[in-house]
């Protein structure tokens, strides 16, 4: 996975030619740039419309239901935000890992690791005051995910095991371990065995935000982590090291950077983000417990993979990953409503998400080509003057 370049498109450097392009030209340029992704989404939605039609549903009703279910009111916006939370957190982790040149496909396992550790903590010390317990379980989640990620990092750095292999395999391990715990050590005592823990005490649950929706603290934390992720990557010394290693590990080593440690750290940070998502999924859940019945994805919601898509849509930038996650979160919550109202299978939404990814990602290059065309039109007629401050 090639890495998307720098923090931001380089600031408009002073290559300003003498002849400023016409006003109309300057107005059209950003519109032309934006038109491509918009057109791509429209194409994807048209494909979706065809599928809806084929399923015997009215596409317009379908999209109204989808939109309404995703963004149609405060409750819907809250649900969408809650759904976006794990995508965002995993996505931030992906930004960190991918920019360090590490392909973390282990979000699923790291979410589970975070959930297991945080749940264990909450079950062990149920009487702790909320003000202490809530931060504690979040931290425990982060630590759980970080350890699981760091293990893959250490395998890569010190044993030469590709992280693509180890993270995929470790997802399986974590899923089975969760299943084991929920059959044995952590299962709720009851007449019928359900793979779930007992109800976690209210003082461990993430507080709801005012406003009467189900929006909880977890969403705020996710956004906060995105901002932290941004500062980590682009404003801290550590970020310089991680990105340097991501772009060119050899040059980084020659410059005196600890490459192996960076790989482990990147996966630890990445795992920590996913682990926090795991904790929030437990402590922000409607059910107030960790449920693994029906397989690990019943709990992780596949966020370990969907988060990758969100991060790449956000150009591996933690802040841009916020709207990207929100968009995919909306697709998922809207999909539930679409299914309920029009009785089309939920699989449609999964397929439609695939189509959106396919079409939008294909269009990105087109966009940069258009961008280049404009660049060329506005280029100077002779080689640029030497830009020395002499």
């Amino acid at each position, binding site marked *: 996975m090639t890495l998307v370049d720098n923090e931001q498109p380089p600031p408009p450097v002073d290559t300003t030619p003498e002849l400023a392009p016409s006003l109309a030209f300057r107005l059209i340029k950003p519109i032309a740039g934006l038109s491509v992704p918009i057109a791509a989404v429209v194409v994807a939605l048209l494909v979706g419309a065809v599928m809806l039609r084929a399923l015997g549903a009215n596409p317009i009703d379908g999209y109204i239901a989808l939109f309404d279910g995703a963004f149609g009111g405060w409750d819907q916006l809250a649900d969408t935000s809650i759904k976006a939370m794990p995508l965002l957190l995993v996505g931030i982790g992906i930004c960190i890992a991918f920019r360090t040149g590490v392909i973390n496909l282990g979000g699923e396992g790291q979410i589970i690791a975070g959930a297991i550790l945080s749940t264990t903590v909450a079950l062990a010390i149920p009487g702790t005051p909320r003000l202490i317990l809530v931060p504690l379980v979040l931290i425990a989640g982060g630590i759980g995910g970080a350890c699981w990620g760091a293990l893959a990092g250490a395998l890569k750095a010190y044993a030469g095991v590709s992280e693509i292999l180890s993270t995929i395999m470790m997802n399986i391990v974590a899923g089975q371990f969760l299943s084991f715990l929920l059959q044995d050590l952590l299962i709720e005592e009851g007449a*019928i065995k359900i*793979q779930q823990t007992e109800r976690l005490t209210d003082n461990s649950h993430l507080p709801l935000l005012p406003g009467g929706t189900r929006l909880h603290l977890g969403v705020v934390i996710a956004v906060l982590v995105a901002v932290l992720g941004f500062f980590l990557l682009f404003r801290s010394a550590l970020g310089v090291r991680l990105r340097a290693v991501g772009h060119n590990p050899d040059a980084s080593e020659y410059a005196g950077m600890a490459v192996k440690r960076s790989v482990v750290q990147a996966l630890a940070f990445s795992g920590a983000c996913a682990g926090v998502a795991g904790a929030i999924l437990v402590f922000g859940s409607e*059910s107030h417990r960790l449920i693994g019945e029906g397989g690990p994805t019943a*709990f992780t919601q596949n966020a370990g993979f969907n988060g990758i898509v969100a991060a790449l849509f956000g150009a591996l930038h933690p802040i841009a990953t916020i709207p990207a996650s929100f968009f995919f979160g909306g697709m998922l*919550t809207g999909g*539930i409503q679409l299914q309920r109202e029009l009785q089309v299978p*939920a699989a449609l939404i999964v397929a439609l998400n695939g189509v959106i990814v396919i079409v939008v990602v294909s269009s990105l290059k087109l966009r940069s080509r258009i961008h280049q065309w404009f660049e060329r039109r506005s280029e100077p007629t002779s080689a640029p003057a030497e830009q020395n401050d002499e």
Partner: protein
Amino acid sequence: GSDDADDATEAAEEVVDDATEAADDAADDAAEAVDEATEAVEETVDDTADAEPIKIGIVAPSASNDLAFTQSIIDSVERVSENRDIEVATTDGTFIVEDAAAAIRGYADDGFDLVIAHGSQYGSSLEEIAPDFPETSFAWGTSADTFGLDNVYSYTVSADQGGYVNGIIAAQLTTSNVIGVVGPIEVGDAALYVDGFVAGVAAQNPDVTVNVNYIESFSDVALASEAANAHVSNGADVLTGTAQMVVGATGVATEAGIPWFGTQSDQTDLAPGEVVASQVYHWEIVLDEVLDKIAGGQLGGESFVLTFENGGLEMAFNDGFELDPEVKASADEAIAALSSGELSTGL
């Protein structure tokens, strides 16, 4: 002097308080009476001309045509709809528990009369959601627990009973004295069925070995298929299994020509020559009762169990499989005994 005055004031206040309370009570009674009257009126309206259909929302974990757990409820609601005016909406494939919670809430929000949360893993979410919608009735299966809420029904099934009957037959069909079971994860209704089956076999013929293989997945069809192969290679000549991934195992039964016992839905279609019998869940027994109670104004608080006795369980024998009449008779006997309560699976 001042003390007396104080006392007097207190006494006066008490009197006033009492009076207010009495007035409140009266008002409450009146309001209740009005409510009841309204309800009565509404009921009559329902019973007579207008007849707005009862809206039922179903939320279930796997596909509605999985020939297993989810399909059992869909089919049952279908059967109920033959005699009743109901309108059904389904959200299936909701294996993500939080999505199920959202769907349950969505149906309640949309004013559905009955929301069926068909998955034991949905219970804990329902426990939190149901109190927010006191006017809506919820049904949760499979479980015996209603959380003490008066708008939640729960329903479950003595899956062990059918398992037991299947076990009795299976023990008579095996010649190798080895039987294989392909299970998903050892929890809930699946574990109950398997345990019942093992008990049935043991009751019939203690010499038969039952190899139980939980493949640790509800969805891995390929692994289920290979688990069945493993059973066959270990000498099993009768197979059974439960949950939606067994469609992988029935193929192995077909190929090897080995008898198969089904559960949850009639699985004859999966292996027309090999399925001996399937335990079929008739949730309509529960549904009918629940709908009657809802019509009567009771929104929950009760729990139902499908058994042979109440007709919620039925053995569907496959006509395409020639079963020795003696064996069939022993099965019928077991069913009768289980129905009458003479016999228990011991679970």
